[in-house]
């Protein structure tokens, strides 16, 4: 399967990944090869076969609502690359 560099750019944008110009043809070639291999699945007729997303027969798992001690916010915030007064700090979003 042929993957164009334009498609690679589109997928990279969806993936929020910046690629160097020289990475693009290589990525296109490797993805193409891998997808060729994936095409093997088309040999199988799966009409009427249910998809498996999960091996356990569970749907939604609910529990009683209750009050419990979880993590301290400050402990979790400690990992943030940039923070201010208990908030995560990111570059300006609107108007950028």
């Amino acid at each position, binding site marked *: 399967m042929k993957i164009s560099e334009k498609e*690679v750019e589109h*997928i*990279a944008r*969806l*993936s*929020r*990944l*910046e*690629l160097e110009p020289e990475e693009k043809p290589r*990525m296109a070639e*490797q*993805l193409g*090869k*891998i*997808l060729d*291999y*994936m095409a*093997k*699945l*088309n*040999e*199988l007729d*799966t009409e009427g*076969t*249910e*998809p*498996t*997303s*999960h*091996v*356990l027969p*569970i749907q939604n*798992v609910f*529990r009683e609502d209750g009050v419990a001690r979880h*993590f301290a916010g400050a*402990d*979790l915030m*400690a*990992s*943030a*690359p*940039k923070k201010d007064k208990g908030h*995560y700090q*990111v*570059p*300006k*979003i609107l108007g*950028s």
Partner: protein
Amino acid sequence: MAHLNLHQLTIHQLAGLLRSGECTSTQIVESVLQRIEAVEGKTNSYLSVFHDEALRQAEAADQVFKREKNPHILAGIPIAIKDLISLKGEKNTCASNILRNYISPFDSTAVRRLREAGTVFIGKTNLDEFAMGSSNENSCFGPAKNPWDLGRVTGGSSGGSAAAVAADECIGSLGTDTGGSIRQPASFCGVVGLKPTYGRVSRFGLVAFASSLDQIGPMAKDVKDAAIMLNCISGKDPMDSTSADVQAPDFTKSLAGDVRGLRIGAPIEYFAEGLDPEVEKAVKDGMERLKALGAEITDISLPHTSYALPVYYILSSAEASSNLARYDGVKYGYRSGEEEGLRKMYERTRKEGFGPEVKRRIMLGTYVLSSGYYDAYYIKAQKVRTLIRGDFDDAFKKCDVIISPVVPAPAFKLGEKMEDPLTMYLSDIYTMPVNLAGLPALSVPCGFNSSGLPMGMQLIGRRFDEETILRAAYAFETTTDFHKKKPLL
């Protein structure tokens, strides 16, 4: 007992010595730390070693032995943890630059259970970045090396956990297995590795790669140690809604050694083209040993075997692309490019933070989930997953355990498969169908090839029937010395 050799012993041997007062946990930990100092420069098994903290925990365990009559069997035993499993207050790098300096603010449930048992945490082990790889070469800290031949790979992704056990740099370790990441390195390094049934062990605190496939499991010096560790980490956990509400038995009780009447299935598709003749012979000899003990062998068929690899890479990459969306430079980890706005910050952070294999899988996963390809790839793969599960369900009508090689060939050379991702993926062909079906499976050492490299035999069981594979593996192991051989380092 000469303290120098304590690091070479098993959990159950050391538990005996601790109880008879012949050694202390401090002496065990000192012995392991000395061993790490001696060989770690060769194996690169660890990403961090907890020297002072391990000695402090050992001292605490020794106090427990003075106070209590019968502490938990894992009390005072030094265990290593794959650096993908959260351990509070320590780094959890996932061997990725994006988490190079990340410190986990909490314990995973598996670690918490070991901690409550009084286990000593000796360090965090090397792996392929975010567990994506089959050789440990995708680590941003460089590959772990196979203790049996330092020019060869450990396998992966739990390469450091396997090498640390094989080189006696710990007594046991935790790994994780998404498509073979416990069993394949266990086979390459000559140790026992067990992937539990999906849902047996809580995934809470395990950094997610492919959530419908990931499981934490033990890597150990023998089958009994694997059973002991599995006992400790199993069970329902309110923090993981996919942990199954199934009572875990005492797995050490399955080690009765009697396999009379056990029906072993040999999948014809696994003993086919591409299998190294020495591996084939070692595994077949292994089955003959079990037959001599009273087991029966029948050929079985898993007709969709050749479709497992594409199914696995579509589904695991799709889940990974979604799971790894969280690394955006906001809440934790590396950040770059913020001067150019939010979007560039995301893209630059991820470009600089992720390695090539992780990027490739994110791209592949995003592609198969994207509009126009979702049905053709993702849904199609989920449907074939149903057929692969069905293969195993049918097979288990005719047998109680399936035995196969773990990997088509012994450990390959460092660098040998790095250029071609597909060839690398093929080293997991016998292990990944098991994850797709959610079954338990283990690797037990079954011989050495003519170059002295270890080989493993895979035992696959029914869902939530780890007992049968442990029983058969134990019966096999008691007739061999493969697990007792040590690499020369």
